[in-house]
């Protein structure tokens, strides 16, 4: 229910389309990623004269939704996409599912056929409200122009509060043409939706007591910490209590990886020492993390000796995968603020020393040689940018290496598709991020497989001279699938080798400067050349065809089945000598 606190304005009547656009301005939307079509032609007409809102015409509706996600993830503000009915709407489905899995606040507006045609198999009709019901936080079909403004208000409210997520609003063509007075509600109050913010005192007390007794505690920090803008609180909390920190893929950036207490990422491809520390910990504090299967492996063997505290804004995440001792439902930022005064420095010197030994014994490693390793490219980007960049990765091997070999220092500097694992995410999402962030350069990192999935957005990037450094790590394989086939499917490489275009020529065809590196000694030079260019720039790094991501805990297994990188200095299959191989090590924290 929305409360109208101001009387309806005495101005002229407006069409639904005008009201829609006015509502976006009221929500302080400064950018919309979209694609016009028949059902939204009225809305596009209303947008035509509006200078407050920048509209970015993507080359595919999936690109529009990922761009809205990139904008939201990089800025913390809701991202907005606007598309037409039917295929326009169905093309948004992957992006919406992605935003749902990763709790990204976006609002997607879809055109719909006129009310009287709904259900008629009308031209470009799709039941997008039905289709997206299980992948949206909530969705709406606006049946009455008098409900339009309040629905838009509610949509933004639901998308951005509690556990954020995508909200879809379906806008029938005739409703957009109907007229009424415009009055935008000042506030929203929904009797059926009241997110928890503050943690319950009784639970907080239990947590404080557990923390005080811990000898080998660890903070397991997830994306919820970044969503709740709580990186600062988390860092203070860790420093005050002297508890080491490991983050999930989405938690990267919530705690500086240059800090002694940092263990880098945990989980399937987490650092050896973070997984080891979790395994031997006696207290695990999950902060805005959801015990995802890529983190826990076999759930009953995850942190087997630890008491568990779980801070999460979504009650349904509590005890969903792993039973915890002290659940605290609330906003991470608020709960950390509540806990802060009652916690004290723990005596974790021995524990931190043990972890330090593990770090020395099992750092992240890769074999460097004449031909380029993806890890090397990422390490160089990390050294050059020193954490001051927004890194947008895609999905696959390069994504894991981007998580491992880049040292994240600031929140909202690591954007990726984690939950859904959507290949093709990086290029459009980096575009959205670049519109949101002017302080840091935006770097899109993709494999050759994922890059080809939303390659069309190069045109959008060129059209608006979006200043993105586009990096393609090309091994000519779907590398992660190939790795699994190598390790678990007897090296039967079924349909994972793929042809790609000449990416430098492709960039040039779009009017984007392009570079290529084929050997390790060219890498740094190419990266520096990219940073010397202000607008969009692309570089292809031809990397060794076969390389594996380690450490690895195979799916559904326990910490004890961890596979660290083999010690042998194996040369790549591309014709290197074993004697030329150098083992490079990197440690987080």
């Amino acid at each position: 229910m929305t409360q109208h606190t101001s009387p309806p304005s005495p101005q002229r009547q407006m069409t639904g389309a005008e009201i829609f656009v006015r509502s976006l301005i009221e929500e302080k939307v400064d950018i919309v990623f979209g694609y016009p079509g028949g059902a939204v032609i009225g809305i596009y007409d209303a947008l035509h004269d509006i200078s407050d809102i920048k509209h970015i015409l993507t080359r595919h509706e999936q690109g529009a939704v990922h761009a809205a996600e990139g904008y939201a993830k990089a800025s913390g503000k809701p991202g907005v996409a606007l598309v037409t009915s039917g295929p326009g709407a169905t093309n948004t489905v992957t992006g919406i599912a992605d935003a749902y899995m990763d709790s990204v606040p976006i609002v997607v507006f879809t055109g719909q056929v006129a009310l009287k045609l709904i259900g008629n198999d009308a031209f470009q009709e799709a039941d997008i409200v039905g289709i997206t019901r299980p992948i949206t936080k909530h969705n709406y079909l606006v049946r009455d122009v008098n409900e339009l403004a309040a629905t838009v208000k509610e949509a933004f409210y639901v998308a951005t509060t509690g556990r954020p997520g995508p909200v879809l609003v379906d806008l029938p063509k005739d409703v957009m043409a109907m007229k009424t007075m415009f009055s935008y509600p000042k506030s929203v109050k929904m009797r059926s939706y009241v997110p928890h913010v503050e943690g319950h005192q009784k639970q907080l007390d239990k947590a404080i007591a557990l923390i005080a007794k811990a000898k080998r505690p660890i903070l397991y920090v997830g994306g919820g910490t970044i969503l709740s803008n709580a990186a600062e609180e988390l860092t203070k909390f860790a420093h005050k209590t002297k508890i080491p920190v490991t983050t999930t893929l989405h938690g990267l950036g919530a705690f500086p990886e240059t800090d002694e207490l940092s263990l880098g990422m945990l989980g399937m491809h987490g650092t050896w020492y973070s997984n080891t520390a979790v395994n031997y910990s006696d207290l695990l504090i999950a902060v805005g993390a959801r015990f995802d299967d890529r983190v826990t492996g076999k759930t009953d063997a995850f942190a087997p000796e630890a008491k568990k505290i779980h801070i999460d804004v979504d009650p349904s995440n509590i005890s969903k995968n792993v039973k915890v001792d002290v659940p605290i439902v609330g906003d991470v930022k608020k709960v950390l603020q509540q806990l802060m005064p009652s916690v004290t420095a723990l005596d974790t010197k021995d524990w931190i020393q043990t972890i330090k030994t593990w770090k020395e014994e099992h750092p992240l490693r890769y074999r460097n040689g004449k031909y380029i390793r993806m890890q090397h490219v990422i390490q160089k980007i990390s050294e050059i940018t020193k954490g001051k960049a927004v890194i947008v990765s895609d999905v696959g091997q390069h994504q894991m290496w981007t998580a491992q070999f880049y040292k994240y220092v600031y929140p909202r500097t690591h954007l990726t598709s984690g939950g859904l694992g959507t290949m093709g995410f990086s290029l459009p999402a980096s575009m959205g991020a670049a519109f949101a962030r002017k302080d840091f350069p935006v770097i899109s990192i993709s494999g050759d497989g994922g890059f080809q999935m939303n390659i069309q957005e190069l045109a959008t990037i060129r059209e608006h001279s979006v200043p993105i450094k586009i990096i393609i790590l090309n091994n000519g394989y779907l590398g992660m699938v190939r790795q699994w086939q190598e390790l678990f499917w007897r090296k039967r490489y079924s349909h994972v080798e793929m042809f790609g275009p000449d990416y430098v020529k492709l960039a040039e065809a779009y009017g984007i400067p392009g570079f290529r590196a084929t050997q390790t000694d060219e890498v740094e030079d190419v990266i520096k050349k990219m940073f010397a260019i202000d607008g969009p720039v692309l570089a292809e790094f031809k990397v060794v065809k076969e390389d594996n991501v380690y450490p690895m805990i195979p799916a559904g297994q326990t910490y004890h089945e961890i596979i660290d990188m083999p010690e042998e200095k194996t040369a790549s299959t591309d014709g290197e000598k074993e004697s030329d191989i150098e083992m490079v090590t990197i440690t987080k924290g």
Partner: protein
Amino acid sequence: MSNSTEIPADETTHKHTISVLLENKFGALNRVAGMFSAKGYNLESITVGPTEDISISRMTIVTRGDDAIIEQIIKQLNKLIDTLKVVDLTYDSFMERELALIKIGTTPDNRSEIMQIVEIFHAKIIDISHKTVTVESTGSGQKVDAIIKMLKPFHIKEIARTGRVALKREFVGEV
């Protein structure tokens, strides 16, 4: 609405009757039913209808699961934006009713026997023809199951069941 793939009862799974109050909005039943199928939860019966407040619907759900699953079901129901209140009636004293219409093929020989069963169960015959009688039976789900079981040896032509509705019992004294 009934789910044909009922999970067999074992020691860890129990039947639960859950009452949900929802905003009476377009698609509310779909959101709940869709959530059950998306999450793979058992759905034995689901009924929905208006309440004393026309802006609110009451849904009564009969489901089955172990404690962890029931906990998740309740949380997932609460998570739906249109949900106002979720109550698991199972551990409370509650009233539960279901209505069934049972159409039975009859012969002049067995009609009186059917009528005796109907009487024992305090059911009603609401339609009669030369070849059929239709019985209306109201009661707990178990009672409806029982009369159907008793009528099985006759020729049951059709059955329509409403699914269960339930409310918390207020009376707390001894009966």
